[in-house]
């Protein structure tokens, strides 16, 4: 009995990393022993990330995104990135706005969801596509989640029951087959392995036993398991004794993790569920800078907040420091209204 290929997406390609490649990588390179992995963002990026990498980011849109690490990626001049999507927004805009991305597997790109679409980002992406500087393979949030999941399971593909009928299939790398069991048509989406996953969490010990204490998990379990290297940035370092008391709350065990970076407020201007809310004013400042389609205002935004700063701590001072962050914490717990009036 053979499984007949009924249709192929036009972006079909041999996988860059196969399950067997990954198994060998895991055997030879992942940290099998529990060792202290704490380091600063600069060191983590220098050590575990390079131009040309396939990269995935934690969270979604402007929620639990790895901004502290991404600032370092921008400052260190890393480029030519292949972005494994899902719902990406401010985090990937940071990269596309600065011409650092050569390929995206979306998901969702450019937009800030309810906060609208930044004009300059859209213009940059449209022009890069037209010039061939940015290529896309169309997926969607479900197929992307399942592709990471398949990789994490150590299998080469996973069958799904959507994508057929939609043009996303045509511009994807999926194939449609007849199911050998039910005779129904199913779409096979290939496992997606990445070179590096940048994952922001609430708590981690020094070894990388990490927790997402609240909020949607998004695709992060798949992203952690499908990456050759995982950089965890964490709001807080906790004691391993604390992890051992509540093992059911551990999101990632240490052996997936290569670096642990302490980065309080590391998702700003994004939301960190259970800690601080979205900095709407800052995102509005970013969006307003994008209104200038000469790109000048956006350049100034980046020079001011990222290229003109040396560390994320410096950036946090620039956006208003403790007072501002306290306000975002109050906003998260509905203690104040947007603007600061008591709720």
């Amino acid at each position: 009995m053979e499984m007949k290929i009924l249709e192929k997406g036009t972006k079909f390609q041999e996988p860059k990393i196969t399950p067997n490649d990954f198994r060998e990588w895991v055997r030879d390179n992942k940290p099998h022993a529990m060792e202290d992995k704490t380091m600063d963002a600069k060191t983590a990026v220098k050590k575990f990330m390079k131009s040309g990498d396939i990269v995935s980011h934690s969270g979604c849109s402007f929620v639990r995104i790895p901004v502290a690490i991404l600032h370092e990626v921008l400052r260190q001049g890393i480029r030519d990135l292949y972005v494994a999507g899902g719902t990406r927004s401010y985090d990937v805009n940071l990269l596309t706005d600065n011409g650092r991305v050569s390929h995206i597997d979306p998901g969702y790109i450019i937009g800030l969801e309810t906060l609208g679409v930044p004009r300059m980002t859209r213009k940059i992406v449209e022009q890069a596509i037209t010039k061939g500087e940015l290529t896309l393979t169309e997926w969607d949030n479900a197929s992307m989640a399942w592709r990471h999941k398949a990789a994490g399971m150590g299998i080469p593909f996973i069958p799904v029951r959507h994508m057929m009928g939609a043009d996303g299939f045509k511009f994807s790398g999926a194939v449609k087959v007849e199911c050998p069991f039910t005779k129904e048509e199913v779409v096979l989406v290939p496992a997606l392995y990445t070179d590096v996953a940048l994952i922001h969490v609430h708590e981690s010990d020094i070894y990388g036993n990490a927790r997402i204490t609240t909020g949607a998990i998004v695709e992060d379990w798949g992203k952690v398991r499908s990456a050759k290297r995982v950089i965890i940035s964490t709001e807080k370092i906790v004691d391993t004794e604390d992890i051992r008391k509540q093992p059911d709350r551990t999101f990632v065990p240490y052996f997936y993790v290569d670096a642990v970076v302490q980065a309080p407020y590391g998702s700003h201007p994004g939301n960190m569920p259970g800690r601080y809310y979205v900095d709407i004013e800052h995102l509005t400042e970013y969006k307003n800078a994008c209104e200038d389609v000469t790109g000048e205002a956006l350049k100034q935004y980046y020079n001011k907040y990222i290229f003109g700063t040396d560390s994320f701590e410096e950036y946090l001072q620039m956006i208003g420091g403790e007072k501002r962050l306290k306000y975002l914490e109050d906003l998260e717990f509905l203690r104040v209204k947007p603007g600061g009036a008591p709720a």
Partner: protein
Amino acid sequence: MSEEYNAMELMTIVASRDIEDRKIIYVGTGIPMLVTSLAQKTRNLKITPIFEVGGIGPEMPTLPLSVACSRTTWRALRSADSSEAFEIAQAGFADYAFLGGAQIDKYGNLNSTVLGDYHAPKVRFPGSGGANAFASFAWKTMIIMNHEKRRFVEKVDYITSPGYLDGPGAREKAGLPPGTGPYKVYTTMGTFDFDEKTKRMRLFSLSPGVTVDDAVANTGFELIIPNKVRQTEPPTREELKILREEVDPYRVILGRGEA
């Protein structure tokens, strides 16, 4: 006594009245969050909203700004991940999905990806997000969007989320789960459903002050016009009050209706 309201407020309120109680509803970003939140607050429904990245059954104390934001897991029943959220839908639990889009055609196919050539886009939109899977798995898909001729087109430039594709039986033929598809479309001009036989979009109800001719003139394909056309009840003072004061007091989305 009727009050002044903008187009966004009108379609949000009309759609919120149609949210069926005791059902599981997948909520896309933007206007669908506004509608679901309004329905929760005005009608005290026992609905379970699910967000694609993991929020299951939240109370949404304020309008979520993102499908992942804290409000989508606030006092929720479970905080899951994306694959689980989509697997729940794929397994058949999604009674409704609620989506927006940039372009729609007579079979309810939705485009939220690109205008013009895919490889040299006139406009590139954010793309599918979770919409393609929602529209494939939900038993009934509800759609909400501005009604303009350039958006209501004979054929969408790109099918992001499948409607009835090119007619009756096409979804099943493509391999999509049977018995699913677009159910209703809420626009600034009225409410539309789909003819059971032809699967083509049909006028269901007209917004206050809108005529059949207006709806036809603003639609780029042939609408089915039933013999008897219903009139949509205008928003009540109570609905407007809750929408403006409790659901979107900062007019994050409602403000867009003023353009």
